C-alpha cells in the first residue's frame, strides 16, 4: 500500500476520486450514464467533453514546463486559432436547387489545417525567442500574450464571429461511437505524444534539458532544437483547443476565447506532479490534473455556489500543492513534528 502511495500519480488520482465522490454525494444523478439521443449522456461525459480543450493545452504545457520554461500565451493562441477558423469558415446560408445549405468561405479542412498551422507558428515564434534570443520564457511568451489578443481581434474585426456550419460543430459537440468526438482528438494527440516520448529518445532529452540545460548541451543534445520544438507543439495544441472551444460555442470571440486557460493549464500540470522547475514530467498526470480542475468547476456549479467561487477554491488548491512541493515547507512541518537534531545544517 505504501509503495502505491509513493507513486507519482498517487496524489492526483486520490484528489480526483475525492472530487468525484463529493460530486456524487451532493448530486444523486452524478455518476449516472445512459444512452440518449444516439450517444452516451451524463455528467461524467459532460466533464470529459468540457475538459478536452484544457487537456490538450495541458499536454503541450507539460512539455514546455519540463524544459524549465512556461508559456502564458496559450490563451491568446487559442483565440487566434478560433478566430482564424471562424473567419475562414464563416458560413452563409445559400439556396442551392431550392435547398438551403451552408457554404463556407474556404473548405473546412483547409480552415482547420490553417488554424493549427498558424498556432504552431505562434509556438515556433515563442520557441525562437527562448532558445535563440535567450529571453526568459515568461517574458518571451508575455509578448504574444499581449499582442495575440489584438491579432485575434484583428482577424475577427472586433466582432464575435458566429459560425454557421454544421460539420464544424461536430468537432466540439459531435459524438462518435457514443463518446464525444473531442475525446477522440485528445486521445489521438495523447497517444501520438506518448509513443513519441517513449519510443524515441525525446522523453529523455526533454527531461535532460529541463534538469540541466548546460550539461545536456555538453553531452551533445541539440537543446535549442528541442526547446523550439516543444514550444511549437504547445502552440499547435493550443490551436486544436481553440478549434474545439469555438466549435462548442459555435462562435469565436477574440477577446474572451481561452481566457485564463493558461493559468488552468499551468495548474493542471502542477497538480499532475510535474515540477515548475523542469525535469521529470507526467503526461498522464497533467490529464488527471485537467480533469481535477474540470470536476472542481462542476462540483462548485452543482453545489449551487456561484461559479466565481471557483477562483478562490483554485487558489487554495494551488497554495496547498505548492507548499507540499516545497522542500522548506516539508522541513518546517517535520521540524514541528520531530525534535530538531543538534547542529543540523541551516538553510
Amino acid at each position, binding site marked *: 500500500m505504501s509503495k502505491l502511495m509513493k507513486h507519482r500519480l498517487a496524489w492526483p488520482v486520490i484528489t480526483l476520486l475525492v472530487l468525484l465522490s463529493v460530486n456524487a454525494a451532493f448530486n444523486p444523478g452524478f455518476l449516472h450514464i445512459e444512452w440518449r439521443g444516439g450517444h452516451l449522456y451524463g455528467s461524467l461525459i459532460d466533464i470529459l467533453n468540457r475538459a478536452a480543450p484544457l487537456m490538450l493545452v495541458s499536454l503541450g504545457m507539460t512539455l514546455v514546463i519540463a524544459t524549465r520554461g512556461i508559456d502564458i500565451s496559450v490563451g491568446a493562441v487559442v483565440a487566434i486559432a478560433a478566430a482564424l477558423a471562424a473567419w475562414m469558415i464563416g458560413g452563409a446560408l445559400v439556396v442551392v436547387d431550392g435547398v438551403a445549405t451552408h457554404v463556407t468561405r474556404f473548405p473546412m479542412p483547409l480552415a482547420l489545417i490553417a488554424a493549427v498551422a498558424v498556432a504552431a507558428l505562434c509556438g515556433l515564434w515563442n520557441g525562437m525567442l527562448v532558445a535563440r534570443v535567450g529571453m526568459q520564457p515568461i517574458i518571451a511568451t508575455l509578448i504574444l500574450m499581449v499582442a495575440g489578443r489584438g491579432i485575434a481581434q484583428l482577424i475577427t474585426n472586433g466582432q464575435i464571429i458566429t459560425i454557421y456550419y454544421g460539420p464544424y460543430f461536430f468537432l466540439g459537440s459531435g459524438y462518435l461511437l457514443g463518446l464525444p468526438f473531442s475525446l477522440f482528438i485528445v486521445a489521438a494527440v495523447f497517444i501520438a505524444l506518448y509513443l513519441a516520448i517513449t519510443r524515441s529518445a525525446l522523453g529523455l532529452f526533454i527531461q535532460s534539458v529541463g534538469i540541466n540545460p548546460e550539461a545536456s548541451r555538453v553531452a551533445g543534445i541539440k537543446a535549442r532544437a528541442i526547446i523550439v520544438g516543444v514550444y511549437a507543439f504547445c502552440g499547435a495544441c493550443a490551436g486544436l483547443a481553440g478549434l474545439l472551444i469555438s466549435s462548442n460555442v459555435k462562435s469565436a470571440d477574440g477577446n474572451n476565447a481561452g481566457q485564463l486557460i493558461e*493559468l488552468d493549464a499551468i495548474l493542471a500540470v502542477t497538480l499532475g506532479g510535474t515540477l515548475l522547475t523542469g525535469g521529470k514530467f507526467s503526461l498522464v498526470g497533467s490529464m488527471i490534473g485537467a480533469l481535477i480542475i474540470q470536476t472542481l468547476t462542476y462540483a462548485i456549479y452543482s453545489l449551487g455556489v456561484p461559479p466565481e467561487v471557483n477562483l*478562490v477554491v483554485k487558489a487554495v488548491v494551488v497554495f496547498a500543492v505548492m507548499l507540499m512541493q516545497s522542500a522548506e515547507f516539508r522541513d518546517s512541518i517535520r521540524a514541528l513534528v520531530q525534535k530538531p537534531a543538534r547542529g543540523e545544517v541551516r538553510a
Partner: protein
Amino acid sequence: MSAVVSPTVEARQPVATPAVMKIQPKYLPLTATISLFVLMATLGSVFYTGFFAPQVFLNLFIDNAFLIICAVGMTFVILAGGIDLSVGSVIALTTMVSASLVQRHGWSPFAVLPLVLAMGTAFGALQGFLIERFRLQPFIVTLAGMFMARGLCYLISIDSIDITNPVYSAISQARIPVWAFGEETASISIGALIAIAVLLAAIFIAHCTPFGRAVYAVGGSEHSAMLMGLPVRGTVIGVYTLSGLCSALAGVVFTFYMLSGYGLHAVGLELDAIAAVVIGGTLLTGGVGYVFGTLFGVLMLGIIQTLISFDGTLSSWWTRIVVGALLFVFCLLQRVFAARSAKPS
C-alpha cells in the same frame, strides 16, 4: 604610498557603449524610452489636430493614474528579481470592498480608505512571506493570489456596485487647475496628484534609502547580498508588501475613477504593469532599472491609446498589438545589451 592602479588594469575595462552625446551608458535604456515617447507625442501633434494640448498630456496622467501607482509597486518587485501577478485582482478587490462597505453598510469613506490600504498591504506581505520563507516561486504564489483576490471579489458581489457616496463623487470630479493660458486651461484630477506623489516617494525610496538600495542589491545577486550581510529576507517581503500597498492605493484611485466596485475591474492590468516596467527599461532579471522609467512606460502605453483614439480609424485592439511589438523590441534590446556586456574584456 603605493602606486595608482596600473594602466593594464584600466585597459581591461570593456569599451563603454558609444555614448549618445553626453549620456552615461547606464541611462541609455531610459533615454531610449523617453525619446520614443517624445517622438510619439511629436508625431501625434503633427498628424492630429488638437493633440498638442496640455490637457491631452494631463489626461495621460488622469486616465492612467492607477496604472502609474500599480506599476511603481511592480517596479520594486521586479527590481528585486520577482514578479507580482496579483496586482490587478487586488485593485478589483479594493474597489469591491470599498463599494460594498460604503454603499451597502454605510461606512464612512474615511474609515474605509485606511482599511482597504491595510488590507492590500497585508495581502502583499502574506505573499512575500510565503515566497521568502518557503522558497516558493513568485510566479505561482502571486498567480494563486490573483485567483484568490478576484474570487473574494465575487464572494462579495457578482454584479457591480455603483458608488453614489458624495465624498467619492466629489473627489472623482474634482479638478485642480494647473495651466491657464488664454483660452487653454488644463487641470488634473486628485487621482493623478496621488500618482505623482507616489512616484516621487518611490524615486526617493529607491535612491536615498537603505531599503531601496537593498532592493537593487538583492535583484543583482541575492547570494552576494546575503554574504554581504544585507537584510535579504526583509527586503523580499518588503517589496511584495510595498506592491500590495501600491495595488491597494491604485485600487482607491481606481474607485474614484470608476465610481463602482466590480469583480471584472482591472482584468489583465498586471500585464500592462509589467509591460510598462519593461518598456521603462527595467530588466526582468532584476537589479537594473529606474522608477522614473516606469512612469514613461505607462505614459507610452497611454499615448498609444490616445493616438489610436485620436485617429479614429484604427480599432482599439491595435493597442494590444503595438504594445506587444514595443515589448518585443525592448526585450530584444535588453538581451542584446546583456549579451554584449557579458563578453569578456
